[in-house]
Structure formats: structure tokens, C-alpha cells
């Protein structure tokens, strides 16, 4: 796969009573998330990329054109080098787990057959091979479905809300497997979800879709720090996603110290090795602002920051401040009253109080990514 290839999608047409008019291009590397509420058209776009839905337009990856209505090109789904994981695992009930995997491997090239053991081990499904799909848990089924898609030796992996049919605990069980895929298998992924947490955790770049149209495109950092955008449609989900590095671990207090743009951020012990890269998700509602460095306060993380922008929502009590901490940006959810009383304005130096962060071990942009 050449690093410069791009997946370009331009679709417009009606599906049922729904109008779709969406175009985007994304580098073929890492995870591109199609994000939007249910009914926004993201699944239809994914199905059109797979060739399972027919909507007018053009779909191409690098030099390979899968659909171009102007030239009358439409490659049948079974001839596209794409693996697809559906919302429900959709394993074939008449075949065992091994039979399901063999179904894919048999029809892919000999290279895929050589990879059988590696893929099965990667997904931790070796002990499941002789079982019937009916005897698997939801999480196990979805792992087998991912393995089956990988065994087709795809050059692009499409995932349609693969976690949404699973309960919370099962999602946490599968996420690590999904996180490893782009790096370990070198397969670019287009991932459909309506879950902001999944975007923050898995995405390298995001295409925000609503009402059949593309609302925003960009890297995960860019899209999250866009204060005019409320991903998931609610303020509670407003957040930023930033990269940080583990500096050291304080075993006595069970804290991990992270380097965030030259300042230290302390989080409860993560078990991560010193020097490892992590991505943090910091919610706007967990960030407060003070004009002076507060003393005697339980909040551990006080970062010096500069106010970059303030967006007040006149319909509600709230305002949002975009703060810069060196090259990193934070969003802080404040009340309009607080903004007025503190006299906050762009350019002002303030202190950002970070009450809580969630993080995971996946760094941004896999090696060789061009996005």
C-alpha cells in the first residue's frame, strides 16, 4: 500500500425517503471515523463503499475506482478488496467458528491462509475454533467476525458500529483488540459510530455526518477542539483529545505523572510504562478556570493557559472557553455569569483546573500515517 493513497467518496442520491449528499477524502491509514447520530446516513455511506448499497456518485481508493457513475463503473461487492464487520457479528450459523474463518481464507489469496494463525492469535479466538457460533458470547462472536473480515486480506476494513450491540463490559473487552488492528495489521479502517468515546479512543480523523451531509472533517484533535461543534449533540460530551507522555510513576500515592505540552498532569496510576505515549480525553465540564493559581485545593492539575476564544450560548446559562496550553487546546465549560464576573477575554492568561481525564494507551497516527 502506498502511503499517499486516499479514499475518496462522493455520493448523492435518495435512499428510501432519505437524501444523501456527502463527499469526503481521507488518507488511507489509521482509523477514519464516520461519526453522526443514528439516521444521519453514515451506515449508508459505509454500505456504498462496500458496494452493498447503490447510490449515485464515485468511490475510489488511490488508483482503484470502485464506483464511478460517469464512466459507468461499478465493481461488485465481492470483487472489492474490502473487509466488512457489521453491527451484528452475522456469523454463518451452519458453520463452526473455524468454518466461518475458513470461508474467508479459502476465497482470499494464499497469503491470507498463511496469516490464519497470526490473525486468530491476535484476536484471541484460538480456543473458540471448534465451537458453534451459537455457543459464543456477543463479544466472542464480534471478535470472530473481525478475524473473518481480516482473513479476506482486505486493503480496507469497514466497521459499522461493531460495538453498539454489546454491553459496556464487553465493549471494554473488545476495544483493545480493535485499537491494535491498524498498527499490527497495517490495515486502514473506516469506522462508523455514534459514540463520542469511541471516536476519542479509536479515531485518527473524523468525518462528522448529519442529515446525510458532511458537517466537518479533520483530525480527531481538530474536530474535538472545534467549540462550535457539539459532538453527540450534547454539551456533556464536549471535550478535547490530546496526546501526552508518561513521565514517571509515583508508587506511594498511586499516581502517574504525564507531560502535557511541557506541564505536568497527574492521573491515578495507569500501569503504563514511563515514556509511553497516551491519548487523553478531557471533557469541557471537567475544566474550570481561575485567574490566580489556587492554593489549598484538592484538584491536582492546575495548568497555566491562555484564553483563546470564548463562545457564549445566549439561550442557556453556559459559555465555553477555548484555552491554549502551549500547542495543546482545552475546552472549559463555564457559566456566562462566571465569564462576566471574572472578566474573561481572549489573550488573557489564566489557570486551567482539570478535575478528571480519561485516557488510553493508543498514540495518535500510526507509523507512516500521512494524516
Amino acid at each position: 500500500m502506498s502511503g499517499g493513497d486516499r479514499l475518496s467518496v462522493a455520493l448523492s442520491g435518495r435512499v428510501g425517503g432519505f437524501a444523501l449528499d456527502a463527499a469526503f477524502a481521507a488518507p488511507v491509514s489509521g482509523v477514519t471515523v464516520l461519526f453522526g447520530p443514528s439516521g444521519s446516513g453514515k451506515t449508508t455511506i459505509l454500505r456504498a463503499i462496500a458496494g452493498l448499497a447503490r447510490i449515485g456518485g464515485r468511490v475510489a481508493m488511490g488508483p482503484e475506482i470502485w464506483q464511478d457513475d460517469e464512466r459507468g463503473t461499478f465493481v461488485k461487492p465481492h470483487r472489492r478488496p474490502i473487509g466488512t464487520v457489521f453491527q451484528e457479528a452475522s456469523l454463518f450459523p451452519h458453520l463452526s467458528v473455524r468454518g466461518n474463518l475458513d470461508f474467508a481464507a479459502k476465497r482470499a489469496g494464499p497469503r491470507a491462509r498463511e496469516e490464519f494463525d497470526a490473525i486468530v492469535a491476535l484476536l484471541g479466538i484460538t480456543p473458540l475454533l471448534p465451537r458453534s457460533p451459537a455457543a459464543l458470547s456477543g463479544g466472542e462472536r464480534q471478535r470472530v467476525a473481525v478475524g473473518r473480515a481480516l482473513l479476506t486480506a482486505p486493503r480496507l476494513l469497514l466497521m459499522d458500529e461493531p460495538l453498539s450491540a454489546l454491553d459496556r463490559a464487553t465493549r471494554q473487552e473488545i476495544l483493545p483488540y480493535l485499537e491494535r488492528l491498524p498498527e499490527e495489521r497495517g490495515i486502514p479502517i473506516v469506522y462508523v459510530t455514534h459514540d463520542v468515546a469511541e471516536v476519542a479512543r479509536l479515531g485518527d480523523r473524523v468525518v462528522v455526518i448529519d442529515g446525510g451531509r458532511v458537517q466537518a472533517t479533520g483530525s480527531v484533535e481538530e474536530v474535538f477542539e472545534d467549540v462550535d461543534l457539539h459532538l453527540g449533540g450534547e454539551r456533556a460530551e464536549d471535550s478535547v483529545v490530546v496526546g501526552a507522555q508518561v513521565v514517571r510513576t509515583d508508587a506511594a500515592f498511586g499516581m502517574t505523572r504525564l507531560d502535557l505540552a511541557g506541564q505536568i498532569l497527574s492521573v491515578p496510576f495507569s500501569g503504563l510504562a514511563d515514556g509511553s505515549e497516551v491519548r487523553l480525553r478531557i471533557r469541557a465540564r471537567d475544566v474550570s478556570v481561575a485567574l490566580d493559581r489556587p492554593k489549598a485545593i484538592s484538584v491536582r492539575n492546575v495548568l497555566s493557559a491562555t484564553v483563546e476564544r470564548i463562545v457564549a450560548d445566549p439561550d442557556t446559562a453556559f459559555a465555553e472557553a477555548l484555552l491554549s496550553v502551549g500547542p495543546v487546546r482545552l475546552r472549559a465549560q463555564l457559566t456566562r455569569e462566571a465569564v462576566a464576573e471574572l472578566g474573561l477575554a481572549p489573550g488573557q492568561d489564566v489557570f486551567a483546573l482539570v478535575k478528571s481525564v480519561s485516557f488510553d494507551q493508543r498514540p495518535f497516527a500510526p507509523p507512516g500515517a500521512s494524516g
Partner: protein
Amino acid sequence: MIDPALWSPIRLTLELATVSTLALLVIGTPIAWWLARSRAPWKDAVAAIVALPLVLPPTVLGFYLLIALGPNGPGGVIGGLFGLRSLAFTFEGLVIGSVIYSLPFVVQPIRNAFAAFGDRPLEVAATLRAGPWDAFWSVALPLARPGLVTGAVLGFAHTVGEFGVVLMIGGNIPGETRVLSVAIYDFVETLQWREAHLLSAGLVVFAFLVILSMMLVEKRLGRRSGL
């Protein structure tokens, strides 16, 4: 006990039912597939034609078949190619009649089975590089197995129990068209009660076993195919 007057219709009936069932599966499966998947507007008309034998008296069907298979019908033309004057009153004619008569009993369960699993397994098969023909054999047919088994059993049993159509197009030629149901009729007409009893009781047992085994098979397959 091995009276050829009894044995010959039993053997002939089993032969007819076996050949007819195979023909029914070969013809009925593609029809069922098309009815389950097509969006053609005239699909319902085709479904109605296939279902006609459910409503028509066998004599009506038999009457038209007699004309079609006779020397002046298409059956006579085809028969001519094989040196026959007509297909009426032949074993081949009986097979044709049985297939048409039993078609709805075979098509319906297979069609239901194809419709039951929906588009998803076929979409999955396509994303796993299986072309339409490949997906039909490797996914659709195995998933429709309970329907295929039910269709085959119903087709076989229905052919065994057929009377009106056989009488119209086959007559009563021993060893050629004299099947069980006709033989029983004949024995009753000629007051051979013992023979009529033997064959009739045998058919009652046969029908019971067919229905029982079908229910058991369906129960087992139904359990297996549960996701």
C-alpha cells in the same frame, strides 16, 4: 405375503415418488429462490400459478395434462423424439403430472426458508469474496436446509398419496402407471378387501411416520440454526 399384485404398485409408487421428489427439488428450488428474492411486479402472479394445484380439483389438472401430454399436445411432440406416440399413460407422464401437482408443497417451505434469513448472510458472503453463485451454494442452500428437507418430504409424501391426476393421465396399467392409490381403488371396486386393507393400513402407517419424522427433523434443525 409377497403377492406381486401388492408389491408391484408399492414399488412403482416408491419409484415415482423418488424420481418426482428429485425433479421437484431441481425445479422447485430455483423457483423458490426467485420468488423469495425477486422484486418483479409479476412475482405474485407466478406464485399464484405455482399454488394453483392447491385449489384446483385434481381432475381439472389431470384433464389439461391429458391434453398436453397426449399425441396432439407438446407432450406428444416430446414423446415423439423418444419414439413414443404420447406421454399420457406412461411413467414419464406420471412424473410430469406429479411434479406439477406437488410443486406448491415443495416451493412454499423452501421459499419461506430463503426469505427467513434475509439479505444479511448473502451480503456477508459477498464481503467475504463469494460471488452470487458461490454464495447460493455455500450459504443460501445450507441455511435453507430445514425448508429443503420439509419440501422434499412433503413432495415425496404428496406424490405417494396422489390419486385424481394419476387416474386422469396414467390410467391403471400394471407396472407402468398402477400406483398404490389406484390399486387400492381397484381392489375396493373388485371387493378384494384383504388387499385393500393391507395397502391402506400401510399408507396410514407411512403417513404417520412421515409427519412424525418431519416434525422431529424440523425441531432438530431449528435448534441448530438458532443464532
